[in-house]
């Protein structure tokens, strides 16, 4: 079986089966368009530790049918156990995985990544915790009092 060579940003080389890596639309298009198999494809945005996780995902979903065109709305924690296991990551690594999934164009991984992050957001008690998690600095946008007021108003509307 033909294989594809990838180089990560920290100069590690991977040799992967075409079947496996073709779940990534980016690589698939690159290889089919350029028709080059020997030269390694550089992935400047992906580190080797992130790619390891991506490959784990690809191995789990090797035999999946191609995803439907229209994504199905699923509940936040509705995913198979292997994926759940895979997504038990530290938050920062998860962010890297999502970025890599977005870059490599792997819809399935992007979806479960986003859903896991959404689950994490759901677990946060308040917005301070979300800020902490996403490393969002405090902005001069609205003062604490204004935010509290806005929150109260919204909660009143939503009941």
């Amino acid at each position: 079986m033909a294989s594809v060579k990838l180089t990560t940003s920290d100069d590690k080389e991977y040799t992967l089966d075409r079947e496996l890596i073709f779940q990534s639309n980016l690589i698939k298009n690159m290889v089919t368009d350029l028709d080059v198999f020997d030269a390694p494809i550089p992935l400047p945005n992906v580190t080797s530790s992130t790619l390891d996780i991506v490959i784990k995902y690809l191995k789990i979903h090797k035999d999946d049918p191609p995803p439907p065109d229209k994504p199905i709305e699923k509940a936040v924690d509705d995913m198979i156990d292997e994926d759940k296991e895979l997504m038990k990551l530290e938050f920062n690594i998860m962010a890297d995985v999502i970025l890599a999934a977005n870059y490599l164009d792997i819809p399935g991984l992007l979806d479960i990544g986003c859903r896991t992050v959404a689950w994490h957001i759901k677990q946060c008690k308040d917005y301070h915790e979300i800020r902490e998690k996403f490393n969002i600095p405090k902005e001069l946008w609205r003062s604490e009092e204004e935010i509290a007021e806005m929150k109260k108003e919204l909660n009143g509307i939503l009941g």
Partner: protein
Amino acid sequence: MHSKRPTKPLPNELIELILKKVPKSKLVDTMCVSKSWHATSSENMGCSRRGTSSRPASASRHSPLKLSPTKHDNSMPPPVVLRRRNSLRSHTVAPMAKLIKSLDFGLAPNPIAKVEHSLPSKKPILSTPKTPSLPLSALSLESPIPFGSERRMSTTVPPKHTQSSPSSSNSKLENIREKPSLHIETEIQVFKKEELKSPYGSWSHRFVSPLLPLVAQLIPHLKEISLKGCHVNASDFTILLESLTQLEKLDVSYSTLKTQGLSQISRFCRHKLVHLDISGIFKLGRNKSDTILDISAYCTGLTKIVAFDCPEIFDDILEDCKALSQNRIEFVTGPSTE
């Protein structure tokens, strides 16, 4: 190897993807995180409604009135579909309507370079809806809407009306929908004959008056409304202003409002109104500048009037307005095209 926090923040498009999957109840918290999160979350919640004039490529050419919700809005399906199925049940409509703070009919012209060609129009200028030189700054807050001639036939109204009271509003929407389609062919021919490449929609497509009483009835707490480039009756406008007691920002630029309608602003929006846009409606003798004096005198909360392209608001009137309002009001004026 990794620090505890993400080394670089996730790009906004990914945040959007993630926030789409966050349950609605949690969106209140995500709205508090930062400005960009607030914008994305409130879009998901449906706080701001904005019509777009562009017709999606897939849209049928026989449905000139295309209803389209704000982009990235998964929470509510497009109202065209929504009328028949997936419609929100009545008990969910009221709270959702309460969330809407701003409404934009999205009919403003786009300041594109080629508009100069359309200046020497043979038609009476009153019947051409827009003056072409809408200053960029007037649109800077929103992404401008491409309003090319090929999109002339598509008009939008905010989806809220269909959701809220399908039976009553649909009949009205149907009425509006029929009007443009009748005119399309003739209009195209007229435009071709006169070799006018007008980037504007014709007036019949911009008739939003029947929707205004509905807005007044369903979302009386609205804070911002934009009637940019809309065809509005004075009576419907009066009903609207009477109900919108919380209105802070009113944009009537390039609309068909006449003196009768404008005088209602000083009658009903006396305390809350902060921002008023009257660009392009004081020219060609359509409106008397007395109304602007009234507005300056009676609207005590008003701090900013945008009046681009109003050649009939002379400097001495501006001086008077400033004196009447004790220099409270800041006027933003621009060059006129005349």
